[in-house]
């Protein structure tokens, strides 16, 4: 393939992406774009970002060879990029730090965020505390219930958590409410958006901040095994952990990229959160044009996933492009398969993964036995599972 260079100046990844925003917010995203383009190449900004990642987040995150897991399932060797070991327990902190540093330079003292599983909310609350900013987190009322430990964490960190009762009371509705807050308080407020979607420059900016994952992996894998992996596997909701590990590998043609969406009760059931695998139509939501789960009249439909962090009807624009140009492949893992993978990692490796990351792991477990022992799968273990104790207990019929 030719040189991969996206997005264009207007934030387009082929036909996807762009700036589909109400006029009231256009000046805000435009200002954000200008500031980001300025600071991303600023040596002082880069140095501060690198410093925070090293001394506050604890990077680089290690890559771990899951030997017992690999042996149990047979076939390809499974390696885990341990984003779960980051401060706050997921990859979300990488992006939250980057955007908070930008907010600081833009003189914004109030930050807002949307959150699904709560990991981005926790990351944002964390950096707001770290940098002395006021923090408001919008969270779907249903997610507030199923992710209660994270709600408590955010409150401990000084954030205000606002349960969103409108619509399906999940991540997309939290996004709507955060956008409404931003429209209302645009001059004082920086919107720390959690995934590689939304209006330009967010998909590009979030990707850039998350690329630390893939950049590290590209150095670590040769150190460990003398070469790059055969495939990189990551879960995709909005797709920030996936694009962070995929992007540095895009021009490494020997490395297969596999994004794993939430299959929910199965693609055929219609109750899933897999716009790419489920062949959703192209649509416009939350400021960008992407593959989007919708009914025939263009209303956004309610999604289902066991994992709140993947329970979103859209997906970042760069994943839409990577699907169309066949550089990445997208598959779905259903709820039961994710739970099985969750159990397996607990049992064989002593690692409790997030339900989101369990989807990526489940796909690795599925394909490893079909591959030779000399093949290597690198799974982005994007977060840890402590937050999911209530959900998993409920599924297993246990009262905590």
């Amino acid at each position, binding site marked *: 393939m030719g040189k991969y260079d996206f997005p264009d100046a207007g934030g387009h990844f082929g036909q996807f992406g762009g700036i589909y925003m109400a006029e009231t917010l256009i000046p805000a995203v435009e200002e954000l774009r200008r500031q980001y383009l300025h600071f991303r190449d600023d040596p002082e900004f880069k140095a501060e970002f690198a410093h925070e990642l090293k001394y506050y987040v604890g990077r680089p995150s290690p890559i771990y060879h899951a030997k017992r897991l690999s042996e149990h399932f047979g076939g390809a060797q499974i390696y885990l990029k341990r984003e779960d070991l980051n401060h706050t327990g997921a990859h979300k902190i990488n992006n939250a730090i980057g955007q908070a540093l930008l907010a600081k330079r833009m003189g914004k003292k109030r930050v807002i965020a949307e959150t699904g599983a709560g990991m981005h909310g926790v990351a944002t609350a964390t950096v707001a505390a770290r940098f002395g900013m006021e923090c408001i987190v919008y969270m779907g009322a249903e997610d507030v219930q199923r992710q209660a430990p994270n709600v408590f964490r955010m409150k401990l960190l000084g954030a205000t958590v606002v349960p969103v009762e409108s619509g399906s009371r999940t991540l997309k509705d939290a996004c709507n409410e955060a956008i*409404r807050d931003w429209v209302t308080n645009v001059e004082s407020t920086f919107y720390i958006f959690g995934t590689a979607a939304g209006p330009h420059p967010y998909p590009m900016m979030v990707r850039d901040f998350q690329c630390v994952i893939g950049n590290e992996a590209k150095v670590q894998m040769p150190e460990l095994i003398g070469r790059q992996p055969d495939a990189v596997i990551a879960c995709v909701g909005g797709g920030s952990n996936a694009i962070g590990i995929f992007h540095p590998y895009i021009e490494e043609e020997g490395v297969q990229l596999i994004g794993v969406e939430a299959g929910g009760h199965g693609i055929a059931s219609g109750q899933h959160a897999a716009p790419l695998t489920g062949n959703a139509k192209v649509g416009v939501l939350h*400021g960008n044009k992407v593959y*989007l789960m919708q009914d025939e009249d263009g209303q956004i439909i309610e999604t289902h996933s066991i994992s709140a962090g993947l329970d979103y009807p859209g997906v970042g624009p760069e994943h839409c492009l990577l699907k169309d140009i066949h550089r990445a492949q997208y598959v779905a893992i259903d709820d039961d398969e994710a739970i099985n993978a969750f159990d397996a990692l607990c049992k064989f490796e002593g690692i409790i993964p997030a339900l989101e990351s369990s989807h990526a792991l489940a796909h690795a477990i599925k394909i490893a036995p079909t591959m030779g022992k000399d093949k290597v799968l690198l799974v982005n273990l994007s977060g840890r599972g402590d937050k999911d104790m209530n959900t998993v207990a409920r599924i297993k019929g246990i009262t905590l």
Partner: protein
Amino acid sequence: MSRIRNVFAALKQSGRKALIPFVTAGDPNPEKTVPLMHAMVKSGANLIELGVPFSDPMADGPVIQRASERALAHHVTLRKVLGMVAEFRKQDAETPVVLMGYANPIEAMGYEQFATMAATSGVDGVLTVDYPPEECAEFVSVLKRHGIDTIFLLSPTTEPARVQRVVDAASGFIYYVSLRGVTGAANLDVADVASKVAAIRQHTALPIGVGFGVRDAATAKAISEIGDAVVVGSRTVQEVENSSENDVVANVGKLIAELRSAIDAK
């Protein structure tokens, strides 16, 4: 000659300002929409803004969000909204109708089909909240081919350099959002609106409608002295929400009549 242009030209000649109420199509139920439109015209509305319900109305405050939810509970689709406009046109050939909504229902239908059906139904203009001019050149040209105006928003935060780009893409009229925030927010700063509208007039000869935050006769009057049209959204929808199904048409008509007489008062 477009209905929108006719209306503004006629009002200008008689020295009056346009009153543009907004209702969400299908709220409180699909049977009430056309009677509401006729009642508003009878009470002095010059142009009707008809909201197309959407599952994720990001730019709207709670009042219009709830209207969207009520309409969607009755499965009001974009096609059905166009049907309502066609029904309205059977008895009213003059009053312009502008659809206001979000991009995705139009994306799902496809530009060409939407424009064809909208033109056949008697739609005069389309305001799509999340289509800034940068993202909808093709849409604008398809609508233009079918004789439909594209109305764009300008906001207090729009930078002067951008105003020109927006008005260049616009036709029919300009909708100036008089407040920061979502629809239905409070506290209108009339002096600020006046200076912003004056600045916009430097860039365009199109009529300027002002909306967001018009909540009573007094604000309607104040705004009518600045803009060419007063857009009343959340206040109208609130009246729909607070009325029983039997009274809704009469109550909304009464509200519009009050606003009309406030605007016309010398």
